[in-house]
């Protein structure tokens, strides 16, 4: 559905001719494979619809004018910054895409430990600015090349350091938001005094409707600027790095230690988490390298830490007796970073950490105690800068399972989940054979610990149709298994739950069928009412889950 010339010219007047395009060579690039959970890349026939135009606003004022025009002309819109996955893309042929790349400022208030960021300020850059001031930020699992604002305002947002730095929602302070109807709201202290330090209230918090747990994925308008809490960083003003690509290692972080814990059992693993939560020793806690799979994770780390090694070495490395032994030792593992804010603090944390290991019969992996590998691990985890490694094994991956946030529920099921995946690895060539268990994720899905954030990585060839469909079928079976176990929705369905497999929005009737019979229907019916109140023209797609309240059915 082509845009009217009148509408296009109006948009052009707002942003200038250089910042708008309807050239198919441009707009085609703003389509995304309709991945199920996060992102997979490769030639697939189900891409999100092509936007009718791509617009690059340069200010909040411009965003507001664009949104008002969209309302006037009844054209859908969605804003995205770093375009990690399908949730940032439109779901209709009558839609434009806002690319927030021009808005990238960062201001740090070191004393009050906060940063004010625009949409295209990415995690890595925000962290660099923060570290200059003895601070750091939560970098969500999406990695440091993604937008801090998008992660904080628009999507889930926990990451390796969340046990210490909290998750996105917990760090969101004041926010400036262009509502779907074009009005601007500034939350908390920002609305009344222009200060950014509190995003709550006055009274009940209007921010309740923007963030939630999953985030609104661009369906509640356009977030144009936020303040986030920064967190203490006891290291140097920048992280000195040594090594040659891809073996970059953190250098001289004497008061920062990285360990890999080897647990004797899944029960010990769950109990270990409980103790780590209570002892407040962790600066970072993440199951990272198991994402490559239980049988090959050390092979991959060997390749990353030895520039002369290549992927073609994997078969030989997998058969290496020492590495096999290490893989077995690290069958149930987690990476931990300790950081000392004083010598005494580091001493306490080391002793407390050792006491926990002793109590549960766990030990530190000797493999990861090698200096180069420890320093590699530190840099990898503190920056979360190697998101591209997720794709290196097979070109694509999806996350599935999700299991339960309660580690005492999830841990006893890990082997069963791993066996289910291994069955697919053995019977379907499209799912990479990595040893079944490829569970990874954050030890803490909430600040201070208490919930976890797991996913199994399903590696597949994104350039092979059979592989793509094998992975999808596997995730379907995973979802059925989770339902059977009473574990709730599968992490791997996050996109398929909210848009059609062909990339288009669900209709209201489809949403009603999906969400009106849930255990507590108010969840969806109140969101319907909120959408009606703040997004009366329904211009932002179907990621916002709604069900028509019974009393409103049939009414316009």
């Amino acid at each position, binding site marked *: 559905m082509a845009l009217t010339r009148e509408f296009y010219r109006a948009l052009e007047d707002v942003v200038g001719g250089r910042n708008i395009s309807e050239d198919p060579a441009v707009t085609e690039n703003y389509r995304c494979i309709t991945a199920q959970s996060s992102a997979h890349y490769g030639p697939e026939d189900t891409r999100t619809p092509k936007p009718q135009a791509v617009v690059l606003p340069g200010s909040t004022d411009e965003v507001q004018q664009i949104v008002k025009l969209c309302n006037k002309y009844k054209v859908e819109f969605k804003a995205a910054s770093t375009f990690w996955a399908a949730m940032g893309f439109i779901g209709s042929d009558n839609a434009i895409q806002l690319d927030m790349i021009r808005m990238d400022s960062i201001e740090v208030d070191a*004393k*009050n*430990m*906060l940063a004010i960021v625009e949409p295209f300020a990415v995690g890595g850059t925000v962290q660099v600015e923060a570290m200059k001031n003895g601070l750091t930020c939560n970098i969500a699992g999406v990695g440091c090349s993604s937008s801090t604002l998008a992660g904080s305002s628009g999507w889930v947002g926990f990451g390796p350091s969340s046990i210490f730095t*909290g998750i996105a*929602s*917990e760090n969101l*302070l004041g926010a400036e938001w262009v509502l779907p109807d074009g009005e*601007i709201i500034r939350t908390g*202290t920002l*609305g*009344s*005094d222009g200060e950014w*330090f*509190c995003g709550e*209230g*006055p*009274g*009940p918090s*209007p*921010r*309740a*409707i923007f*963030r*939630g*747990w*999953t985030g*609104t994925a661009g369906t509640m308008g356009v977030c144009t600027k936020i303040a986030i*809490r920064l967190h*203490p960083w006891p290291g140097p003003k920048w992280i000195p790095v040594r090594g040659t690509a891809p073996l970059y290692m953190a250098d001289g972080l004497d008061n920062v230690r990285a360990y890999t814990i080897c647990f004797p059992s899944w029960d010990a693993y769950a109990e270990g988490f409980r103790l780590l*939560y*209570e002892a*407040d020793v962790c600066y970072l806690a993440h199951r990272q390298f198991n994402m490559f799979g239980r049988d090959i994770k050390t092979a991959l780390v060997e390749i990353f830490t030895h520039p002369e090694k290549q992927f073609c070495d994997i078969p030989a490395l997998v058969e290496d007796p020492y590495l096999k032994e290490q893989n077995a030792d690290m069958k149930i593992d987690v990476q931990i970073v300790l950081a000392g*804010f004083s010598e*005494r*603090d580091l*001493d*306490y944390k080391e002793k*407390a950490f050792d006491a*926990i290991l002793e109590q549960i019969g766990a030990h530190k992996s000797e493999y990861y105690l090698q200096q180069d590998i420890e320093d590699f691990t530190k840099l990898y985890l503190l920056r979360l800068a190697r998101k591209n490694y997720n794709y290196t094994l097979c070109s694509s991956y999806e996350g599935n399972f999700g299991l339960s*946030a*309660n580690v005492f*529920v999830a841990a006893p099921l890990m082997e069963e989940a791993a066996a289910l995946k291994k069955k697919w690895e053995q019977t379907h060539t499209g799912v990479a054979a990595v040893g079944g268990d490829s569970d990874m994720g954050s030890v803490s899905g*909430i*600040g*201070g610990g*208490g*919930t976890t954030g797991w996913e199994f990585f399903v590696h597949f060839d994104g350039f092979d149709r059979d592989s793509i469909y094998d992975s999808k079928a596997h995730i379907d079976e995973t979802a059925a298994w989770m339902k059977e176990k009473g574990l*709730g929705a599968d992490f791997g369905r996050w996109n398929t739950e909210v848009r059609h497999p062909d990339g288009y929005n669900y209709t209201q009737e489809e949403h009603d069928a999906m969400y009106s019979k849930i*255990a*507590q229907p*108010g*969840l969806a019916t*109140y*969101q319907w009412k*909120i959408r009606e*109140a*703040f997004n009366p023209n329904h211009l932002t797609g179907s990621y*916002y*889950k709604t069900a028509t309240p019974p009393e409103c059915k049939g009414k316009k």
Partner: protein
Amino acid sequence: MATKDSLKTILGNANVIDNPDVLASYAVSHSFDKNFKPWYVVKPKDAETVEKLVAFANETKTPLVPVSSTGVKLRGDSVPGVPEAVVVDLSGMDKILNVNRQQRMVVIEPGVTYDRLSAELAKQNMVIAGSLKPKKGQSVLTDIVEAVPRLNPMIQWNFFDPLRCAEVTWGDGTRMSTGEAAGGPLDLKTQWGKQQWQVQYMGPWMTDYFRLVTQAQGSMGIVTWASLKTAVKPLIHQLYVAEADDLADLEGFVYKAMWTRFPDEIFILNNMQLASLMGKTQAEIESLKEVLPPWIVAASAAGRELIPEVRFEARSKDLIDIAQASGLDLKEGLSNLSGRALYQEATSTDGDVYWKDLYAGSHQNVFFLTQLDKTGVFLRAVREIAEDFGYPTEDIGVYIQPKHQGSSYHMEFTFPYDPDSAKQTARVQDLTESVSVAVADLGGYYSRPYGKWAGIQLNKDAQSLMALKRLQKIFDPNDVMNPGKLAI
């Protein structure tokens, strides 16, 4: 409008009260705002009854005012702001529904008080982060839902920690849970059977439902249970104290201590607030005020179940070092103040008379959020206004509490006065109104906008007001929940 027979049908005869003396007791508060005597006081015993009551209120357009605490009402938010209201007294819903040591979670009903909860948690070596010396009948749930600051801000990754999930009957009569709990059935026992312990408070989807009942003064719905995150009880604990002549002298230490996250509790008091906390009579407070230093900062070190001595020693020595580097002498006590005694007073509940009323008989508070480096501006302004009103500035109590791991600071001014003196009462009323306006003009943020602060705050922010109006129309379309508050 409500009739007694209808209410009796819903609540039972014994739970509908219209005794004039009892009704009058629900209309008394420290607030200067206009209060109304309720028509009835009702005492539901369970959430199902609350749900029926709210449905009835919608049918009859009856205002409902939820109350969970007993004893003196300090802010006026739980006293009817309109005539013909029904007070919903939830203090009898006082069950501790679940204590889970593994998850460090507790689920409580609105009527549970600090003393009861602390005793129950102590059995499993847990504690709840408390507020500064709450009144004896203070509902823990209300204290936390209303975001009264915690003495230990380090446990607050989220602004509203330790609040996690809640069950709410919204103003339109719909009962639902918030956060993780909304993903399952309303029945908690079924959730516990699946090892779901109401830990994760967000969402559970796109909307943070719990944020709509926090700081709401009962204007959005009635909370019938809440899950709270607890902490492991310290085995070794010491509250240290450092004194200063000026508030500004404490700034460097507090910023650095917050940066390290070494302390558990950390807060600032001036001599008047400290004397009020420690003294048991007007005379004691008067004499203590004279000998205590103008300002103190209190910061604690703790050791818990895991190598407690090592943690305690590390935290203690580091805090002392940080203080020294900031020009302060952090000690176990001053010549006339023991840190342990201060901790005992700060964390215990009140006696028969509210502690801020001991000095003169009553008091008024003005509190708001700011940042630490701006507190001096407010201090100067408030003292100047007090001088203009002829109020003795040495009687002004000041309490500063970091919140949300130090991202914001609660600043509270307390003005004691003799309620039997019409002159003093009128002066304090005029003074606090002037202070309230001045604070707002200087950028003080009434995140919890009680009484006149609602109008002052929302008049500064038309878009938030607009958003709140829209939300209230969704969740309380007939305006039955505590109307007259919040200025929406």
